[in-house]
């Protein structure tokens, strides 16, 4: 097995709190992005690491696209409001990328059950809340299937999206979103009945089938996140 695959596997199996800490340190690091050079160096460091550890490029790029929209908006408004200085505006935009992108990528790889273990056993959040939260995350995977079915029905009934008519396309999107919401709510109701009938309704002192351990890999991921977060402050201190 190559080193890259080892790293990738470790990243996917790692502790959800360690993954969340990656996003947290990027938030802190973003504060030190005071000029374009620092921003570019910090962002490059994250890009290289994500390229090494992410199993597919699709999801990180999607996150990057959303972050770019946010960054561009901030850049433009800073440019308009701050005497049209392009450099200062770009710094603000790059800072948004450094703050938002790493965390949004890391969140995507959380394992719901392990997150629940850590929230309940590590952080001592209320057991019923955590169990319901984990079940809700699990239900998200059924939404993609529902979307496909809703889309097929609408298309076959002449109510599909018409991209040439923006108003009709927006109406289609709203109708799909509403239908998906209704579907999710009704599904959540049925899941609640099923959960209650498995002892959840009367659960008093809930236990957890697996422990919330910190392995060496988890610590390594957390330390890696800290080091990445330190890139911006370090460059800031040196220059």
């Amino acid at each position, binding site marked *: 097995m190559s080193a890259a695959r080892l790293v990738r596997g470790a990243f996917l199996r790692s502790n959800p709190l360690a993954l969340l800490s990656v996003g947290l340190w990027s938030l802190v690091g973003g504060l030190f992005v005071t000029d374009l050079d620092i921003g570019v160096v910090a962002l490059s460091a994250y890009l290289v690491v994500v390229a090494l550890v992410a199993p597919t490029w699709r999801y990180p790029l999607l996150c990057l696209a959303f972050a770019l929209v946010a960054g561009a908006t901030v850049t433009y408004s800073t440019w308009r409001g701050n005497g049209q200085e392009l450099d200062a505006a770009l710094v603000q935009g790059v800072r948004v990328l450094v703050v938002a992108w790493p965390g949004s990528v890391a969140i995507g790889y959380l394992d719901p*059950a392990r997150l629940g273990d850590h929230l309940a056993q590590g952080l001592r959040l209320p057991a019923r809340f955590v169990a319901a939260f984990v079940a809700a995350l699990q239900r998200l995977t059924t939404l993609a299937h529902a979307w496909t079915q809703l889309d097929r029905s609408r298309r*076959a009934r002449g109510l599909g999206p018409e991209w040439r008519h923006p108003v009709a396309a927006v109406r289609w999107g709203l109708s799909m979103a509403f239908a998906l919401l209704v579907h999710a709510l009704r599904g959540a109701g049925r899941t609640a009945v099923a959960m209650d009938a498995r002892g959840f309704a009367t659960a008093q002192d809930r236990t*957890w089938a697996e422990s919330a351990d910190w392995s060496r890999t988890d610590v390594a991921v957390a330390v890696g996140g800290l080091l990445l977060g330190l890139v911006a402050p370090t460059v800031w201190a040196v220059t």
Partner: protein
Amino acid sequence: MRPGEVRVSGLSWTPLGRRSPVLIGLDLNVQPGERVLLLGASGAGKSSVLHALTGALGGTIAGTLDGAVSVGGRLGLLPQDPTDSVVADRIGRDVAFGPENLGLGRAEIWHRVDAALAAVGLPYGRDHPTVALSGGEQQRLALAGVLALGPDVMVLDEPTSMLDPVTAAVVRDAVVGVLGDRTLVVVEHRFEPWLDHVDRVVVLESGGIAFDGSVDHFLRGAFPALWMPGATVPEPLAVEGRLVAPAGEVVAPVAEALVVDLVTRLLRGTQRTRAIDGLDVATVPGRRLALTGASGAGKSTALAALAGLVRPTAGSVTPDLSRLRSRDLAAVLGWVPQNPEHAFVTTSVRDEVAVSAARLGRVVDVDGVLAALGLDSLASAHPFRLSGGEQRRLALAAGLAHRPGLVMLDEPTVGQDRRTWAAVAGWIGAAADAGAAVAVSTHDADLPVDAVVEIVAGGRS
């Protein structure tokens, strides 16, 4: 109260938003270890009785509840759709949910998980992903989840209605195998295979009990609304030709060497599964084609590919409807999805029937369609407020009222009562007689069709 005993007295139930009650002063006592088959037509209140036993009525399910329900010991519910009871992404952790709620120690939890998985015959390890299970396996996983609780009363809500006969038998054997001396209450539409395993039959009708007695006594009775053993299939509903005669061009797609890969994009990587592998099948104007096969064999995907709702990975579908704009597709195609709730796009039964025709500028006799399907008294009701059978009939009207030349229904008779079954059989028969090309995916051998193509693990047998 003894463990395994069930007492229901004076139970009345009106769901939120309904005027008339679903259950009216129902009394039902079940002794420990008794095995009860609960029957009734669609909308008779079977699911409401089960939900009352689980304690969900008036709480998780909103409405007005009267009367008393008490259950001795612990109760476990197996829901109709096994995906509703999945709470974790690995099977071991999913089965552990019940024991966790009981506050058991870690060693006892895993002891129970392993025993339950073995008892229902799931051969995979604890870390097997729940999404990778087939329909029958998912239902056995749900059964393991119930079993791990150590229930005194097991309540099954149509546990095999979504499965083909072979898979259904595996799940039924798993249930009977783990039952022991526990109390059983089971609801099922096609109930014949359960009769050997129960002591008592209760038939619900308009909110009360119409029959309560032994299996022998039940078999001597007359229940026209139920699927009695040996009963002939229902007479297909007579549908007037003018309601189904194709209003436009009749297209009949033909698939050659069809290959369809389904792509599931997860963050942890992309899963590509070959749903259809080299299928040749043709629809014919004026004929009804049935795509059959085991649960998960790919019959729904094959139907969707013929309908132009899924693009082929390789091979061809001629004419290829997937290139058409939505409105042009609707002009030739009528599609009824497996889950009726996926079909609904409006807030009233009447609008639901009219909307596609209005989009195409076709004139449709909405009242005639509703009357033919027995929905005329519900014209102003909200589609989501209907019973299961009523929803299925409305989905049929919504998908087909605009008189398409190509009529396609995905699993149209799953879990349906005789009246809805007769409506489906009658509608597709009349459409074919009027010249439409008809195709259904089904594992119902009784549905009258002109040609059957069995799909075996993606290909044709």
